[in-house]
């Protein structure tokens, strides 16, 4: 979560807010934030740290592991219409890549801003060419995009 907190200003600039969820109590959240996370990131966690003690939220999102009684490492990008545009679920030992999360947010925002008139090809980064889906692009993608 410290890795997300370190990029929070960037996320806020993109109009994104964060909610984090684990099975820990709000009291444990406070202890973790105050005694460890504040030593990793100035100010600690600036968003709602939610408690899902029975795993009910995690079950709905498909991230609650019944065997261990904890949530897997899950990440969902939800647009302003409340639609889940992207999801990533990992077992606990591997951490997140915020560069990729932010890249996906920027890509979904571009698609939304263009009303779906533009799509982003594989490996797309902000500023790179997009694709304009339509009949004239069929069989012609090679002219405008290829893997680098």
């Amino acid at each position: 979560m410290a890795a997300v907190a370190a990029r929070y200003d960037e996320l806020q600039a993109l109009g994104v807010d964060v909610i984090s969820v684990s099975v820990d109590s709000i009291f444990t959240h406070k202890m973790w934030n105050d005694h460890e996370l504040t030593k990793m990131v100035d100010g600690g966690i600036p968003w709602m740290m939610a408690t899902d003690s029975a795993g009910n939220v995690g079950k709905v999102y498909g991230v609650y592991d019944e065997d261990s009684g904890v949530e897997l490492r899950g990440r969902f990008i939800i647009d302003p219409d409340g639609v889940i545009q992207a999801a990533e679920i990992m077992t606990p030992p591997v951490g997140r890549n915020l560069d990729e999360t932010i890249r996906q947010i920027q890509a979904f925002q571009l698609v939304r801003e263009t009303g779906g008139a533009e799509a982003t090809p594989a490996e797309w980064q902000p500023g790179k060419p997009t694709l304009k889906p339509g009949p004239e692009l069929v069989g012609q993608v090679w002219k405008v995009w290829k893997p680098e």
Partner: protein
Amino acid sequence: MITAKVGKAAPDFGAPAYKEGAFTSVQLSDYVKKGWTLLCFYPGDFTYV
């Protein structure tokens, strides 16, 4: 039970929460009204990764 699916509406939920020194509560639908939301689950406080 409604389950979360990519491309479909995110199931709403409410939960107790801690934020910047205060015990409070969070409702996903309040966030959706304001913009984009990054919803992150993790195995537990004080875990290593």
